[in-house]
């Protein structure tokens, strides 16, 4: 009987703690969404109110009057282009790293991992000067290229890992029939590696979509990204908090969906495979 009571008590504790964990994780999002539905007057009430008449005005104004829609489209274009480019370049490279033997492979690995760890400010300084000299400030292509510095290594890492898990016998059989390496990649390995390729695409999309510093430094108006736009609301007195939270909500929703889709591989991807 005593053991039973102890087990029940442990169960209750677990439920309480799990509820607390979920509450802490989710509450900021709840607050963000409710603030985005408040008028400026309601948003500035002290102490804050929990029940109020919701309005979509902040979304309408932010999207259509302040040009947030335009910046969301910019962010989308940039994230899709850089992801596509990273896949085109990274998938064959990953295949080579998984399948071929050659000198310098280890150094290449080291270089990719280092790229993941370098602070973006280290690249932002020279990139700004180069882009300025080439007249490439405030252009989509500039961000597409600079985002490759962190997207390409992550695509290469995840895909190499995936290609390694495909049995070598399959290639061998195809090669005996005279298939080239390119055919083996396209016809045999790539279809089998699709889950890994999809996850690496999601990672690349999330990292590009979330990025602020390069967007801030390298764009002004034409290629301004959504996070840079959200930050530009933060100037002057009497900040439009409802509008800022509406913009934040629009930015965060797609990444949360993608992150949930890739949730099983998230840890593996973030640690570059050190943790299975």
């Amino acid at each position, binding site marked *: 009987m005593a053991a039973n009571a102890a087990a029940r008590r442990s169960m209750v504790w*677990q439920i309480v703690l*799990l509820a607390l*964990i*979920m509450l802490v*994780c989710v509450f*900021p*999002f709840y*607050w*963000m969404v409710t603030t985005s539905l408040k008028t400026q007057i309601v*948003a*500035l*009430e*002290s*102490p*804050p109110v929990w029940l109020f008449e919701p309005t979509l005005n902040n979304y309408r104004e932010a999207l259509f009057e302040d040009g947030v829609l335009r910046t969301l489209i910019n962010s989308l274009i940039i994230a899709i282009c850089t992801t596509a480019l990273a896949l*085109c*370049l990274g998938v*064959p*490279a990953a295949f*080579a790293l998984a*399948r*071929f033997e*050659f000198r310098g492979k280890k150094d*290449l690995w080291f270089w990719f*991992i*280092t790229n*993941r*760890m370098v*602070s*973006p*400010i*280290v*690249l932002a*300084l*020279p990139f700004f000067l*180069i882009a300025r000299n080439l007249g490439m400030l405030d252009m989509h292509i500039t961000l597409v290229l600079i985002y*490759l*510095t962190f997207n390409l290594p992550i695509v290469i890492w995840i895909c190499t890992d995936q290609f390694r898990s495909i049995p070598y016998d399959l290639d061998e059989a195809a090669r005996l029939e005279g298939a080239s*390496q390119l055919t083996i990649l396209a016809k045999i390995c790539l279809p089998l590696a699709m889950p890994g390729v999809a996850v690496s695409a999601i990672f690349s999309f999330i990292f590009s979509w*979330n*990025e*602020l*510093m390069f967007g801030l*430094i390298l764009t002004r108006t034409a290629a301004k990204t959504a*996070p840079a736009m*959200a*930050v530009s609301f*933060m100037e002057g007195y009497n900040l439009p908090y409802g509008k800022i*939270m509406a913009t*934040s909500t629009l930015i*965060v929703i797609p*990444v949360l969906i*993608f*992150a*949930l889709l890739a*949730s099983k591989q998230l*840890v593996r991807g973030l*640690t570059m495979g050190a*943790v*299975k």
Partner: protein
Amino acid sequence: MRGKVSRKTIFGFLGPSVIALALIGIAPLLYALWTSLHFFNLTKLKKVKFVGFENYTSVLTDEVFWQAMGRTFFLLGVSLPLQLGLGLGIALILHKPGLTLLKTLARLSLVLPMATTYAVVGLLGQVMFNQKFGVINQFLSPFGGGNINWIGDSTNAFAMIVFWDVWQWTPFVALVLLAGLTTVPGEIEEAARLETKRWWTVLRYVQLPFLMPGLVAVLILRTADTLKLFDMVFTLTRGGPGSSTEFISLMIQRVGFRGFDQGLASAQAIILLIITIILAQIYIRVFYREV
């Protein structure tokens, strides 16, 4: 025979990636190296001239630089133990059998903070920690803390940065450690539990060895990420008040883009890069020995 292919094939597959990364990843670094050896101010571009290691000597003797570096590692020293402690607790709860549905939901909600746009975390901080209409002060008011100035006070602003760093990255630590816990063979864990009722004995002698790789990964990656930390702090405090939350990446950004001294900022960036390369070396030595 396995894996032997012609040089042309290797180059065809790897070449485009390597060339792309060399152009966008290495060429800019060489340019930064060049800039760091020059007097290079964005407002005085006609006066660019070679100064040798002058920028480096001024960085290395610059108190502000070392303070920012110290502050960065202090942040790591405060938030990493919190993340490890809380993360381990969460991982142990999620690892217990039973309550499957609730635990799956908890695991999914842990994914959300990690994926959140860093800039949005900073903006959320502005709203939730506002002195007048912030919900955090509302929560604290029954305990007599209803009027705390979070953003305008040095210590409080630092505490707020710690809060958001812990909020965003404890889930990462928890999921890494949970992954480690699931690698403990079931029979070993059960045998240990028959021997002792004390959970910390099981943790210390049975589970800890399996957690080590994850712990080392967390240690190195969190160090690298703290050195990278910019977006969230920039949107929340811009490094202020004063320089109380000016971490290393913010400081370099200020010197280079708000102080316009690209030469000095590049020298700081190169020093930061060297520290990062050492970290990456350690990471690869620990984890990719077989590659």
